C-alpha cells in the first residue's frame, strides 16, 4: 500500500493474520495508518475491527489461544519483536475503551497513576495532571474538586477522564474502542470535538459502530467484513463514492 499521507505513516501493518484457536479471525491485513490523523475502523459485529485494533498495542497477547502472524510497525519499530517491552508499548499506544473505566480513586490520582508508575517525580505530577485534564477538556469542570472520587463523575466526564489519563503518559497513538457507545449525544459531541483537537498531537485510531461518527470525525476510514479489510481510503471518498460494493451496501444500510 502506498504511503502518500501528508504527515507520513505512523503504523504500518503488513500481511497480518490472527487466529483464535482454529478460528482464522483476521485475513492478511495490510494497511498504513497516517500520523496526526483520525482513522476509523467500521464494519458489522464480528468483522474483526476491534480484534485488529487490539493488535496495535498487543492487547491480544492476553487472550489464550490467540496466534498472530505478520508485521506491525509503529514509527518503524516492529512491535511484535521479542525485545519489545509490552508495558512501554502500551504507554506509547494508549487505549480508551467502550465503557469508561476510571480507577476507584480521586480524579487527581486517576491521572497521576500512570506518570507515577513510570517514575515521574512528585513535584512534576500536579502540572502533568492539570495539563492532561486540560487537553482532555475536563479541567474546567473538575479543577475545584480534584479530590472527589472519579466514580462520582457523569459517564461522559468519566470517559474524558480516561482520555486524560491516557494523555498523561504522553502516548504517540491513542486507540479508541467505541468510546461513545455508552454516552448520550451531548457527551458524544464533546468526545468527538476532543478527538478532533487531539489529532494535532497524536495519531488516533477509532473503532465505531456508529458510521455517522466515523463520517463526522475521521480523515480515513477502513471497512472490515468477516475478517477481511475490504476498503481503506479517505473518509470523504468512502462516504461519497466507495469503490467496493460491500462498502456501499454497509454504509447505506443495505446489508443482509
Amino acid at each position: 500500500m502506498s504511503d502518500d499521507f501528508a504527515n507520513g505513516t505512523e503504523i504500518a501493518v503488513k500481511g497480518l493474520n490472527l487466529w483464535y484457536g482454529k478460528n482464522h479471525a483476521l485475513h492478511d491485513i495490510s494497511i498504513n495508518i497516517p500520523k496526526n490523523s483520525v482513522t476509523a475502523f467500521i464494519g458489522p459485529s464480528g468483522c474483526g475491527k476491534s480484534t485488529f485494533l487490539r493488535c496495535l498495542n498487543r492487547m491480544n497477547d492476553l487472550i489464550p489461544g490467540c496466534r498472530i502472524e505478520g508485521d506491525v510497525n509503529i514509527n518503524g519499530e516492529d512491535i511484535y519483536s521479542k525485545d519489545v517491552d509490552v508495558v512501554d508499548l502500551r504507554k506509547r499506544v494508549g487505549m480508551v475503551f467502550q465503557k469508561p473505566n476510571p480507577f476507584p480513586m480521586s480524579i487527581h490520582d486517576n491521572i497521576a497513576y500512570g506518570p507515577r508508575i513510570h517514575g515521574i517525580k512528585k513535584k512534576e505530577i500536579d502540572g502533568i495532571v492539570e495539563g492532561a485534564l486540560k487537553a482532555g477538556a475536563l479541567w474546567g469542570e473538575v479543577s475545584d474538586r480534584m479530590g472527589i472520587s472519579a466514580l462520582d463523575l457523569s459517564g461522559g466526564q468519566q470517559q474524558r477522564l480516561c482520555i486524560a489519563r491516557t494523555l498523561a503518559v504522553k502516548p504517540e497513538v491513542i486507540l479508541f474502542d467505541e468510546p461513545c457507545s455508552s454516552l448520550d449525544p451531548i457527551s458524544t459531541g464533546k468526545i468527538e470535538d476532543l478527538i478532533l483537537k487531539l489529532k494535532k498531537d497524536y495519531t488516533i485510531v477509532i473503532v465505531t459502530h456508529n458510521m455517522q461518527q466515523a463520517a463526522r470525525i475521521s480523515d480515513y476510514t477502513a471497512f472490515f467484513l468477516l475478517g477481511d479489510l475490504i476498503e481503506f481510503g479517505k473518509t470523504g471518498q468512502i462516504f461519497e463514492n466507495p469503490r467496493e460494493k460491500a462498502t456501499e451496501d454497509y454504509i447505506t444500510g443495505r446489508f443482509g
Partner: protein
Amino acid sequence: MTREQYLQHLQILKRYITEMGERSCQSVSDSMISLITQDMELAEKVIQKDMIIDEYYLKIEKCISQLIARQSPTAGDMRLVTSCLKIAVDLERASDLAVDIARITKCIEEKHTKPFSNVLKMSELGKEMLQHSIVAFDTLDEELARKTAAKDDEVDRLFYVSQKELIEMMSGDRSIINNGSYLLFVLRYLERIADHACNICESVVYMASGERANLN
C-alpha cells in the same frame, strides 16, 4: 459549543455562496456596462471570469456532497444545505446569462437604437434584485427576500412593454433588425436574471421559515 468542525464547514459553504453571489452580480453589472459603452475588453473579461464562477459552483457542490455524506445535517442546517445547492445553480445560470449579454456586446453594430431607457431600468432592477437576494441569504432576512422578489413584477412589465416597443420599431425600420433582435435577447436575459434572483429569495424564505413560498 459542540461539533465545531461541522459548524465551520457550514460557515465555509455560506461564504462560498456569498462570494459566488458577489461575482455573479459583478458579471451582470459588467456585461451591461460593456453593452452600453461598447467596451469589448470588459465584455471579454466577463466571458473569461465565468470560469471562476463555474469553479465556485463545483466547490459548492463538493462541499454539499461532503456535508450530506458525512454530517447528516438536519432541521435548519438541512434547509441551508439543500437551499445552497439550488442557489448555486441560480447564480451559475445568472452568470451564464451575463456571459450571453457580453457576447452580444461583441456582435452588435455600432449605434444602438432607442428603447435603451427601459433596458437600463431592467438592468438596474435585475442587478439590485440579485444583490439583495444575496444580502437576504447572508443575513437570513426573510422580509428582504420577499420585498426583493416582489420587484419581479416590475421587471416582467418592463420586459413586455420593451419587447412590444422594440418589435414595432423593427417593423417600421428594417435597418435596425440586426441590433434590435440582439436587444430582444438582452431583454429576455435580464428578465431571466431577475427570475433567478426570485428563486434565490424563495430559497431564503425556505431557509428562514421552512415555508416553500412561490414568489415568482
